[in-house]
């Protein structure tokens, strides 16, 4: 007997068979292009002038982009598609008429999003390997880090998308949360160079912790706060997000 959550996941896998080609670009090719453009070209200038980050800029940027990609994929996949599940395809309502519970419906979709995050980060890891940006066997754990970052970002987004009254909210979410996080949470430069308010914001963001873990893994270095602390912050994001998401889903599907 398959677990009901796995049965809900199955739907998303079947649907993905039709769309995976187009998603490869946004979840893999685009970040890889970023890596090349920023890591090699911009990195060339940086490496000539500064040694304060201690490693070639490409090697510094790579694991950061890996975590940022996890954020992008996770948020993209858990906003519009979740809203669509309620309002466009109505697939959640369809599932709800079967023996699946609200929790199964939620977890099945969440599992799919995390699978997408894992796949895109594994692909990105291969690119990093080809560019010689990996310096430690710990690099193999980065897909796990990506999944953790993905869950920390996706779970609250599921809650947000379930409560949204229009899909316009998601473009705003990208503008006020995803883009600033991507730019300022340690992906491109150390957060130590930020003013203290911004740095504080970076510390609460899930991305910075993911970047720290990811970078430590590929470079074989230590993290800022120690692995358990970063994992703990991400776990809190996951847990709070999941509770909120389950509550929102229950309200929408079990009125």
């Amino acid at each position, binding site marked *: 007997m398959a677990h009901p959550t796995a*049965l*809900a996941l199955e739907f998303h896998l079947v*649907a993905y068979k039709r769309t995976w080609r187009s998603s490869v670009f946004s979840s893999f090719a685009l970040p890889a292009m970023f890596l090349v453009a920023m890591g090699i070209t911009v990195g060339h200038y940086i490496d000539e002038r500064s040694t304060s980050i201690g490693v070639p800029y490409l090697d510094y940027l790579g694991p950061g982009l890996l975590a940022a990609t996890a954020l992008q994929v996770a948020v993209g996949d858990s906003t519009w598609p979740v809203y669509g599940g309620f309002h466009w395809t109505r697939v959640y309502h369809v599932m*709800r008429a*079967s023996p699946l519970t609200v929790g199964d419906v939620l977890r099945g979709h969440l599992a799919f999003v995390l699978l997408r995050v894992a796949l895109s980060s594994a692909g990105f890891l291969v690119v990093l390997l080809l560019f010689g940006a990996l310096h430690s066997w710990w690099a193999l754990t980065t897909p796990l880090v990506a999944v953790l970052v993905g869950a920390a970002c996706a779970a609250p987004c599921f809650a947000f998308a379930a409560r949204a009254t229009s899909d316009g909210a998601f473009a705003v979410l990208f503008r006020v949360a995803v883009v600033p996080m991507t730019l300022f949470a340690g992906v491109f430069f150390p957060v130590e160079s930020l003013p203290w308010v911004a740095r504080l914001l970076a510390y609460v963001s899930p991305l910075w912790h993911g970047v720290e873990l990811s970078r430590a893994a590929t470079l074989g270095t230590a993290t800022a706060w120690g692995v358990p602390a970063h994992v703990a912050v991400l776990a809190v994001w996951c847990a709070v997000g999941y509770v909120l998401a389950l509550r929102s889903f229950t309200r929408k599907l079990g009125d």
Partner: protein
Amino acid sequence: MAEDEALIAATALVKQFGDFTAVDGIDVRVRAGEAFGFLGPNGAGKSSTMRMIGCVSRPTGGALRILGLDAAKDGAAIRARLGVCPQQDSLDLELTVLENLTVYARYFNIPRKVARARAMELLDFVQLADRAGDKVEPLSGGMKRRLTIARALVNEPEIVLLDEPTTGLDPQARHLVWERLFRLKQRGVTLVLTTHYMDEAEQLCDRLVVMDAGRIVAEGSPRELIDRHSTREVLEVRFGNDPLDGFADKLDGIGERVEVLPDRILVYTGDGDAAAAQVHGRGLTPSSVLVRRGSLEDVFLQLTGRTLVD
């Protein structure tokens, strides 16, 4: 009826949204093998009731037992044995016709092989076998409805819930759906359907309740309801575009009862032709005269003072 022979037993069932009461204490018993209908206008509370029976919406009050189980506690177990055709089409337009069934079957943990075989059979049943590999998007409204009905049958349900199965379909498509539902009924599947079409209720339902504003205003077989609340025949007269206000007096005494609607006048009578003769006998010259059998529409009008579809 004894409690234990009812597949669905609702007692004082209530559904509220905030302080609005959509379902206001209804009592319903549905027996195995019957086709049971909820007839009522838009907003009567039919869908709210169906969603509670489908165990996707929690009753605010009252008791609801389905297949001998408590809807509040055993939702998943009940849903496993129900087939649901919701009011709003919710097929996956990206998937093929066949995939829509097989994917849905998996929610019920039906093995893939079985799901496929059953899906093919059901597509045959709803006359869509030749479209199995096509996407759903270009299908006509009637085809989509039939596919939704097929989907509701993949788990071989003991009860099939159909919320407005033919609303929005053209007459030919409706007849195709009715014919399939009639076949299901013959196979002994218990059907529960809602409709605001009195002809649909008359064609399909062994027994029905008339719902209005969250309450049940009458219950019985279509025949019983018509006998009880209407007359054998109804004479419909129209007077072109003339205002009809004054006609109640002019027709007084003809038939058992006269009902003046905005566009026509209904005369309830055992003998429509005789009533028509009486109308002419009073020197009135209607622009059109029609004698028809009493219908559920008349029942609803009699009970609520309003027409079903406006």
